[in-house]
């Protein structure tokens, strides 16, 4: 027990929270990579995609959780609603980041790759995306932290995760669970943030080797 919350409960809620915030992060990244790359290549498409996904981000989370059953035909308590909503938010944040990241690759690097005989697709996968990793990782860290925070709102429509400690504590006028839930959210967010930073560091060894002048 910690401040009136059983460790078992906390563990279960942690897994639920990680699932609801983490899966959309991965799916959102997979969707944003081609979308952001396209947006950086085709200018009119770029402004449309960035504006469109940005528009989705303006919809308040509670409203989106409630509206998705209408669109998807799911039940209001279905996890799918939260997963889809969080994926939308992730894509909204990351598409612009991926476009910026790919756009930040220096022109001479692209030209060198083309001169070495790299085809378009191979260059994108082997040159553009790796070089864009620092920018994409920075965006992914923002998305991870805000996903963890937003998911807690789903407790209001009865989807259980750390946010359930908020509603539970509030209904019983007990401060303990609310504080535990808040701290748990922050810790989970910081852990995900650190994990992404570590992975990005591992994927970009050239940044640490020092560039010979």
């Amino acid at each position, binding site marked *: 027990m910690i401040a009136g919350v059983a460790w078992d409960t906390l563990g279960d809620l942690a897994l639920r929270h990680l699932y609801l915030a983490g899966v959309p992060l991965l799916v959102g990244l997979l969707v944003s990579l081609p979308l952001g790359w396209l947006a950086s290549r085709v200018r009119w498409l770029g402004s449309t995609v960035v504006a469109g996904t940005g528009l989705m981000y*303006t919809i308040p989370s509670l*409203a*989106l959780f409630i*509206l998705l059953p209408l669109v998807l035909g799911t039940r209001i308590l279905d996890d799918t609603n939260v997963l889809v909503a969080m994926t939308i938010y992730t894509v909204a944040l990351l598409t612009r980041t991926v476009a910026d990241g790919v756009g930040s690759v220096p022109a001479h690097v692209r030209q060198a790759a083309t001169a070495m005989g790299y085809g378009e697709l191979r260059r994108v996968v082997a040159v553009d995306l790796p070089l864009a990793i620092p920018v994409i990782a920075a965006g992914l860290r923002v998305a991870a*932290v805000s996903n963890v*925070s937003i998911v807690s709102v789903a407790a*209001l429509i009865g989807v259980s995760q750390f946010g359930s400690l908020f509603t539970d504590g509030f209904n019983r006028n007990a401060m303990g669970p609310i504080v535990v*839930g808040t701290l748990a959210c922050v810790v989970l967010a*910081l852990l995900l943030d650190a994990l992404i930073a570590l992975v990005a560091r591992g994927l970009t060894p050239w940044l640490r080797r020092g560039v010979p002048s």
Partner: protein
Amino acid sequence: MIDQTWAWLTDPASWTGTRGILAQSLAHLRYSFVALLVAAVVAVPVGLSVGHTGRGRWLAVNVAGSFRAIPSLGVLFIAVLLLLPRLRGELAFELPALLVLVLLAIPPILSGTYAGVQATDAAARDAARGMGMTGTQVLLQVEVPGAMPLVMSGLRAAMLQIIGTATIAAVVGLGGLGRFLIDGQASRDYAQMAGGAIVVAALALTVDLVLALAQRVVVSPGLTAAVRR
């Protein structure tokens, strides 16, 4: 479900009266703008000063960044439990909610303002000094106009945060459009919940659009031309 939601939205009775959509929209806008204004009054001067002097930079960067990790629902409940026994009447529910909205809005405005001043063209700043401008003149005539695009995007991010969280604050008794979401759920009236959610989404989009237009007006045409180039 869609038919019932549409029926709720098109029923004139849903729109009128002290608890109707119109009245609640106005209340929602009132809370939101008050919170934005208070947050801006605090955050913009601090952001300008941090950006201009470079002092307290770690505060602007780290505090603003780590704030994102704090779940607003938890903070809201903590604030209400702490303040509720100490306040009376309607204020007891409104004040903690408004306080949380202001606290949430400060970091994006602060970091936007700070980053905006930092992003001002160094050459323009040097030129202004070279022309004999004092520190205050450089701040007001060069750095503030130069910072406007990022200040405005900070304000827009803050406003979206406020509108969304004000919806959540209906749980602790705050008025506004969140009432339809929370009361609808309490009475298992999904049509009301979904209708309210549509109205909130529309309100958020409209306010963001208005602020985007305001951004065009307040940002110097010299800057936007430079960006388009």
